[in-house]
């Protein structure tokens, strides 16, 4: 049965968590991708996913009913990931967690490529636009707000990202 997220959030505001499982099932992918594209480590992502949901629940009164919960959760996940990165960059810079240099490799076996491998072909900003718009389904306008960039820049980043991915994997996808 399709759940009504607004109704569930209304229940959360009243400290009623009966439908938390449904809420989690509906939103966990967006939260995960908003985090993993920055921290690139599943263990860290797991911790930050928990922090994201706890942050959301603890500040549930700030969420306006009728708002886009996916954009809201993506924003929390992204902000927490950037904070984590900033706090830990001295220790983890060698892992290239955030400022990944785009790979120049050409994908040969597209079916074996994980989505994260594909995203690795992009720079940080391109990757973020693809995650927030294409994967998490946010409008360009929302992505621009979250990234604090002009809309035109976001549109351009998305186009550049798709062009790069087409070059890297496009030719192997033709049937």
């Amino acid at each position, binding site marked *: 049965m399709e759940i009504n997220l607004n109704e569930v959030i209304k229940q959360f505001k009243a400290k009623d968590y009966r439908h938390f499982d449904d809420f989690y099932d509906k939103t966990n992918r967006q939260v995960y991708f908003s985090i993993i594209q920055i921290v690139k480590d599943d263990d860290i992502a797991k911790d930050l996913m928990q922090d994201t949901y706890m942050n959301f629940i603890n500040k549930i009164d700030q*969420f306006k009913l009728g708002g886009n919960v996916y954009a809201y959760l993506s*924003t*929390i996940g992204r902000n927490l990931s950037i904070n984590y990165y900033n706090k830990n960059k001295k220790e983890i810079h060698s892992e290239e967690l955030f400022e990944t240099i785009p790979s120049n490799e050409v994908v040969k076996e597209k079916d074996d490529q994980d989505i994260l491998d594909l995203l690795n072909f992009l720079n940080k900003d391109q990757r973020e636009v693809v995650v927030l718009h294409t994967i998490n389904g946010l409008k*360009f306008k929302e992505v*621009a707000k979250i990234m604090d960039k002009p809309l035109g820049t976001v549109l351009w980043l998305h186009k550049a990202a798709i062009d790069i991915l087409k070059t890297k994997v496009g030719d192997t*996808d033709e049937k």
Partner: protein
Amino acid sequence: MKNKQMIQMIKKKAQAKQVPNVLNELKEKLNIEALNQPEVILESKPRFNFKALYASFTFVLALSIVLVISLFYQSPSLNLLEDSDYGDHVILSAISTTEIAGSNETLNLETSMVLVDDNPEDDYVENQIDDVLKYSEMIETLLMNQQAFEKTVLKSDKDNYEYMLRFSFYDLNDDQITYTLYYRQLINHENQTYVIKAELVTQNESYALDIEGELEKQAFEMTYHINQQESIKTTYQKSDIRNEFIVTRLYQNEIIQESMITYNNKNQVNLSFIRGEAKGNYEFTLDQSLPTQKGMNIRYQINNIDEGSISIKVDMQNREQFIIEIRPDHRPPSVIERERPYGPPKRDEPGNPNMPNRGN
């Protein structure tokens, strides 16, 4: 590879990605088990209750009286939707309702987590185009059909409805589109009012529409309940020369989005966003410059920040897609592709699950 295929590939791979599950940890942190007490269902033993029996009898009697009165008031000769002008505007309202009902509203990022200010680019037309396209099928239908729609009234094959009405008209490809609407009507001659219970049925979904109005007025109000909290209300009224639709989306009876569609004749249709995220005024006209590829031209203005023109054409390589050329007056032009609302009729297939009764 086309952009659309690339985007689909990204989505497919994202969907296939194994996401770590932290649900149990979260439930532990939230202490959900303790908070979520199992429901105790108390079953009372059935007992004979004279009061309940009496109440049931009274209810059935009252219902019978109401039914007899309603049958008395119902005119066997008058079929409201057979009136050409009235019926056409009902079906146009139903078309816009089904498109808006399928979209997510409203987007609100005004929270402490997003500490960025509005900037003028928010008003650029690129940000409004998805909202504009929600009305494109309704406006396309108006522009492409200068004459009244073809209508066939049949006896309903559904128990709850009296009539089944088939409407036919043409889309931008000159393909004939057919919609079927089931309905029953209740006319109160004493008050000169009526209520129509209608249902627009698609392959997977049906849209229950309530229509109310006064007999002598060229006006009605159509309501579709998305769920207990949300609804879409469309009011139509006609003055001497102007036809006006006001479409509102309500959440807990509060208007969260409002738009207006007006036209004096079917050569130009205006769309204005009044409340909600979408902004601007849009004047639609039919583009017949290419005989084999009709389209729509739009002149737009958004809050004195952005103005210009838009050309919408059906992609001849993929008729489920629009090619949209945006030509702002003071910015560089751009071309984008968007999925066409409902797309063209698929005559060779039993039915597109997202299309209301089209092309049969």
